[in-house]
């Protein structure tokens, strides 16, 4: 629980709060060639009671070419269950006609889980519901990676459906999460009895990175989509709770982490209490060619007053700017005036 740890603040340059998603920015999905990013806001996680959820689940859009520091709310149309739409992990696929298809991990107020597929209408600036997928292997989904028009990888970050159950799971070490592959019709376990938070594939789609957040490690696996199989390559110890991932054009892994887990747990326990905040950390991880070793640069660290419980970060504008997302608060947009290759 990191009782002997704390965060010492530093920033890569000037930082500003992004207006709009006040109830969280748990995941970003960057559409590189359109220079936009979708933001999931208002995640519901192990709610005690449905009435505790006093916010709305929303999806925002941020234009990476402007310095507006304001994200735009995008309406989501034709949902089966509008009241039960609380987005978590995001991923996308570009269809043959150029349409952006969003894959969204969704929870309801009663913590029911599904994967919602939405197509983005660029002209009208709206998301149209295509399909909702439920499966008994989506135990407690967290993050998702689209691998085709209708196929994806999804991570389960545990098996317990209640807060008490989750505490037991964490302390006992008997994890019921893992990684599941859905091929459009049926689902297959790739990783079982594990904890998997953020997941991402390398840009060449051959390597899978899995955040084993409770063990403070990152698992590296080779991914064979044809045979629907993974093989473990290594497990990198980070000594910090890394959440979601982004792979940049230089093949560096970017992640938002929780360096002091006890403070994040306190913050999660009462999301609306502004006096509780979780420390944040943004790491840029560079792997060796065989993926067995990694070098880590800390791009940003904050005690929680500016960036509260970071989950995701990514660079843009040739690495001169970064966006940092958080579990339950606003995202932060920073300039980067430093070099990260100093060995």
């Amino acid at each position: 629980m990191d009782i002997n740890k704390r965060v010492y603040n530093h920033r890569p340059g000037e930082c500003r709060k992004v207006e709009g998603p006040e109830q969280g920015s748990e995941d970003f999905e960057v559409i590189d060639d359109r220079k936009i990013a979708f933001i999931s806001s208002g995640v519901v996680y192990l709610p005690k009671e449905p009435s505790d959820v006093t916010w709305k689940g929303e999806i925002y859009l941020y234009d990476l070419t402007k310095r507006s520091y304001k994200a735009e709310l995008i309406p989501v149309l034709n949902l089966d269950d509008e009241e039960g739409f609380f987005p978590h992990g995001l991923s996308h696929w570009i269809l043959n006609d150029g349409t952006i298809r969003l894959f969204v991990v969704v929870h309801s107020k009663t913590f029911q889980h599904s994967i919602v597929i939405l197509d983005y209408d660029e002209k009208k600036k709206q998301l149209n519901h295509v399909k909702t997928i439920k499966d008994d292997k989506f135990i407690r989904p967290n993050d998702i990676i689209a691998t085709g028009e209708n196929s994806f990888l999804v991570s389960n970050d545990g098996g317990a459906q209640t807060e008490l159950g989750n505490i037991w799971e964490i302390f006992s070490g008997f994890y019921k999460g893992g990684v599941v592959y859905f091929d459009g019709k049926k689902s297959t376990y790739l990783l079982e009895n594990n904890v998997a938070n953020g997941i991402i594939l390398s840009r060449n789609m051959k390597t899978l990175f899995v955040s084993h957040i409770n063990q403070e490690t990152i698992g590296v696996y080779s991914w064979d989509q044809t045979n629907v199989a993974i093989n473990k390559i290594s497990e990198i110890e980070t000594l910090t709770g890394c959440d979601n991932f982004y792979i940049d054009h230089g093949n560096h892994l970017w992640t938002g982490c929780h360096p002091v887990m006890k403070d994040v747990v306190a913050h999660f326990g009462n999301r609306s209490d502004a006096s509780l905040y979780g420390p944040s950390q943004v790491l840029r991880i560079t792997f060796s060619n065989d993926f067995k070793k990694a070098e880590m640069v800390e791009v940003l660290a904050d005690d929680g007053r500016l960036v509260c419980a970071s989950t995701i970060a990514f660079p843009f504008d040739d690495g001169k700017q970064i966006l940092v997302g958080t579990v339950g608060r606003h995202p932060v947009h920073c300039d980067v005036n430093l070099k990260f290759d100093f060995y």
Partner: protein
Amino acid sequence: MGAQNSFLHFMHRFVFWVLFAMVSCFVLRVLIVLDLNKRIYNHTPGPCRVLTEKFKGTSGLAYVESQKRVYVTLGYGKAHNLTTNTGIAFYNTNRTDGRSQQEIYDLIEMQINWNGYEYQNMFIPTGIDSYSSSNGRVLLYVVNAHPDHQCIHFFQVDNQKLNYRKSICDSSFTSLQDVAVVGPDRIFFTNMAAFGRGWAQVIEFALQTGQGVVYYYDGTKLAIAAPSVNAPTGLGYDSKRKILYVGSLIRESLFAYKVEKDMSLEVMYEMMLLTSPIGLFVESKSGDLWIAAHPVLHETAWHYTHVDRNKVHSSSQILRIRIQEEGKSWVTTEPYANDGATISASSAIVYTDEQMIIGSTFGRLLHCDLTHAHIT
């Protein structure tokens, strides 16, 4: 007989559980101090470069505002049986005095005129501080960490030479670390542990007996200013506010003492850093504190007991503490951190003119520019 047996049985069980609790507490304390769940993630505040790696140690730094010089003690590794030259050098922080781009980063080694001092061959400098008098005279006070000759040496700066003046030596000096100047020939200095080196010192630290001492010397008499400090290391003196800061290696904290008129020390507060401070620097204008720290203590312990192995690194960390509301609160930032590959076991820090100079226990001297000094 039955009653006596059951009483003895109870006493055995009672003693067992008390001892078990004591041993468990001890083990837990040792585990927490060792920082087994910590590591350093690299970052810099701007471009950095190595000023020197000729010496096994650049462990003490002192800044002289009137000369814009940083004085560096060289060769501390010799106290741990490393082969290295020892001495004192200075770095000129003035970037606009007409020197070329190459010359700007030169370190000037100083010649020492010992005036016949008989122990000049037993000189292993570490902590250092300075006093500038109104007539332009610059005095340096240097900790000698030689195992057989622990002393504070007094020098006067003569351009690129040092003239030896006198020494304070005492048999109670076993592990001298740092010195802070409060007036001409009036100094505080730290003795970190009762045992000077090696496994005896490691065991002392593990037991956390707190046998370190802060001494005060008034020009003629030596006195104990603060007894029983847990592993006191770096010293920093804020002359404007009359505050002496003392780092604690084992408590991973910083003590702030008010220096009274009679030079006695009154504890103001303890700042929990959760990292082990080694060197301190006080910005005289703002009162802000800079700390060179050993953030992962098990790495440090390994590094200090295997000094001859180049691959046994220890992480380096520089913190900046912005003091607010006259010490009622503060904001901590981390301008620099490194896993030991670039600079290992940072032990001293100086900040001036958006430049940072970092000294290390057994290795390199690093210079960094601060791209955004106001938010770093």
